[in-house]
């Protein structure tokens, strides 16, 4: 019986690793987080008893390990407001001098249908991996781990303004990437 549980847990390792590597870019740190989550899971088999979905349960444990890893990796150097403002300039090319659209953004045809297509997720994953590391980390903490921005600022040791900026950059970059590689095709 104990064997069975271990095998089931081990079988989910590749999934957990892939999930983690979207959030921790350092492969060693990702491996460690998964390993710790698996060990914690095996040690608390009893608390799983009666729950229906092993993957969901393991992912819940893993989220804590990922936050721990981010915390361990240390805080971001605090940026000056001027630098934060500079980071926003990435997207200035989209706007004219009067801050209106250089070119009116096109509509996306049926985005919900994209969620039914396997190919779309490959594109989305590539887009996520293409984000700058800090930007990606803040975005993943928000969207994968479901943390509030207050917690994200705290964990990353950045100012609230910088937090907004990171999330904004992530979304704008993903929007452009999806448009270029999926919706614009």
């Amino acid at each position, binding site marked *: 019986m104990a064997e069975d549980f271990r095998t089931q847990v081990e079988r*989910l390792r590749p999934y957990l690793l892939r999930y983690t590597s979207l959030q921790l870019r350092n492969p060693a740190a990702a491996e460690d987080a998964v390993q710790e989550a698996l060990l914690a899971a095996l040690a608390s088999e009893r608390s799983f008893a009666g729950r229906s979905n092993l993957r969901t349960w393991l992912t819940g444990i893993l989220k804590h390990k990922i936050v721990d890893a981010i915390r361990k990796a240390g805080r971001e150097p605090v940026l000056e407001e001027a630098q934060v403002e500079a980071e926003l300039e990435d997207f200035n090319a989209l*706007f004219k001098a009067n*801050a209106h*659209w250089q070119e009116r953004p096109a*509509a996306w045809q049926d*985005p919900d249908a994209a969620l039914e297509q396997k190919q779309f997720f490959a594109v989305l994953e590539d887009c996520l991996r293409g984000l700058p590391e800090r930007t990606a980390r803040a975005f993943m903490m928000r*969207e994968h781990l479901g943390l509030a921005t207050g917690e994200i600022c705290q964990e990353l040791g950045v100012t609230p303004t910088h937090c907004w900026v990171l999330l904004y950059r992530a979304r704008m970059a*993903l*929007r452009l990437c999806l448009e270029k590689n999926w919706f614009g095709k």
Partner: protein
Amino acid sequence: MMLDCREVTRLASQGEDRKLALGERVRLRLHFLYCLGCRRVARQLRFLRPAIRALDQKIGSDHVF
């Protein structure tokens, strides 16, 4: 005070993370009334959350080896 498109995109992103103040919501709505580009972009930014959620599910189901 009118918002320009750049400010609208910033505020639309913040709307995903905090409850916007009434004044902010009103100014966004007013801007959306006459700006098709910003309406589209706001919708596209909002689409990212369900997309990421679906990706989380997908990684688990389709790709497990």
